[in-house]
């Protein structure tokens, strides 16, 4: 573990802070792009109830794709750079987010949705004011599992010459510097936990106290 606490590794253009930020940047942008694609799709299918088979097929299909193979394919097609990394990671992040959103919307009590329409909400309002807020716990579940996978898998960016914490893992492997490799792996794990904690915080802030299990929250 000496490598991890060596001050020399914490500074400079290839230091741990820089790699951490690179790694975080991959994660955030990946989740953002995946969300823009997966949330509306999951929400639309969940709301209309049409095309549920599409969600299941798409998520299963994407989950079966080996991320490494996607990465190399896109490198062969578009060359080294960020594009192959994001393509591979976004394809990885879409299934859990889409499945979470879809499941969240489907799980909203039918009586609640019936009441929403019955009091005069238009379809848009039914989705935005009732279905989405009530599906947030499951939507967050999807995001958290996507985030964990992306943080862990973003290491392969280094495999095609990009940055991130994966550098330590692949360089360590190449130079047989196993303490560097282990240090990189530990950093990835710690980062995954921290990112998850951020999501827990976000969830606390955005999910209505009315949706917490009775007796555990919600001031009375």
């Amino acid at each position: 573990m000496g490598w991890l606490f060596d001050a020399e590794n914490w500074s400079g253009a290839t230091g741990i802070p820089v790699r951490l930020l690179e790694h975080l940047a991959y994660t955030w942008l990946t989740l953002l792009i995946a969300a823009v694609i997966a949330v509306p799709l999951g929400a639309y299918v969940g709301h209309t109830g049409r095309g549920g088979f599409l969600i299941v097929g798409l998520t299963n299909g994407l989950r079966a794709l080996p991320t490494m193979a996607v990465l190399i394919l896109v490198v062969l097609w578009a060359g080294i750079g960020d594009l192959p990394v994001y393509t591979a990671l976004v394809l990885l992040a879409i299934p859990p987010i889409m499945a979470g959103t879809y499941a969240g919307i489907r799980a909203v009590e039918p009586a609640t949705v019936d009441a929403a329409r019955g009091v005069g909400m238009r379809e848009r309002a039914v989705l935005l004011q009732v279905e989405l807020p009530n599906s947030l716990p499951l939507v967050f579940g999807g995001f958290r599992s996507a985030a964990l996978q992306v943080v862990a898998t973003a290491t392969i960016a280094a495999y095609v010459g990009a940055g991130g914490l994966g550098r330590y893992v692949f360089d360590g492997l190449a130079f047989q510097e196993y303490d560097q490799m282990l240090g990189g792996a530990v950093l990835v794990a710690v980062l995954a936990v921290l990112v998850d904690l951020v999501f827990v915080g976000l969830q606390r802030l955005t999910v209505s106290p009315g949706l917490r299990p009775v007796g555990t929250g919600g001031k009375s």
Partner: protein
Amino acid sequence: MIEFRAVTKRFEDGTIAVDELDLVVEAGTITVFVGPSGCGKTTSLRMVNRMIDSTSGTILVDGKDVMSVDPPTLRLGIGYVIQQAGLFPHRTVLDNVATVPLLSGWDRKRARTRAAELLETVGLDSGFAKRYPAQLSGGQQQRVGVARALAADPPVLLMDEPFSAVDPIVREGLQDELLRLQGELGKTIVFVTHDIDEALKLGDRVAVFREGGHLAQYAKPAELLSAPANDFVASFAGRDRGYRTLTFLRADVPVREVTTATLGSTVTSNGWVLAVDENRRPVGWLSPVDGATEVTADKLISGGSLYDGSSLRAALDAALSSPSALGVTVDPDGAVVGVVQADDVLKALATARAAGEVPS
């Protein structure tokens, strides 16, 4: 006023849920749709606010064809209460009630003020405003559901089995509350239930539906019991309908005197003695004894139901349920005024019959 003109609903699989329904719901009254499951009562209700569209026929709400208005706009003008309330779990009680005013374009402050007023109207104190539906009992949720439906002051209220998921005692309270509210507000209410007792209690008029979406009878509750249109209505109205008919009869039953004694006093009587508290409210009966007795709580036999002068049914029940066979009669403050006897009730019924008030 709501008018059904030859309204039919045929589902895609060919089943006919409602068959050529003709019916007028008078403004300012409660009309109850009652019948067994699958009789089309809920479908009929949901066609009024277009949660379901009719296959043919016309439904007019205050003279306007519902098909000429787009559904969300139509629904904003019609209160809607459903089973188990259907509250929005992520919104506080206050925001649930403010939903319709906000959708109708009121500003937030005015909507919330209105919502707070309504919570009071339905009997929930302001402490409930900030709670979430999951923190409320079934009865409280249903009150919030009613408040939400009333929020934008719609002239018409549709209630789809609103009280069926709460226990009988709470349900009775909610029914009384609805009648009290209706006394103040005078809405045009369509109320769906499968419970004939609820229908008879709440309805100014009751529409009995039977399987296949046929209207079996549409009449006032008393008429439904005393003159059922056919065997279906007679059997649906139940075995006790002779007894229940008494609910709708108000006749003079002679009120007799009774020996009363306050708790702690000493009484001499060879008949039943009614023990009362300092406000003359009944607390129990003392069975006949020889000689002077002190009236103490441990000697008392608890009494039956009380007769408040409302109906012959209440009078008869008071007499039948009392251990002394004397039905305790009370004034509006709950103080004892006397007792009624079962045979007097039956005599009053015979007199009413002779006068032609009750079809015999």
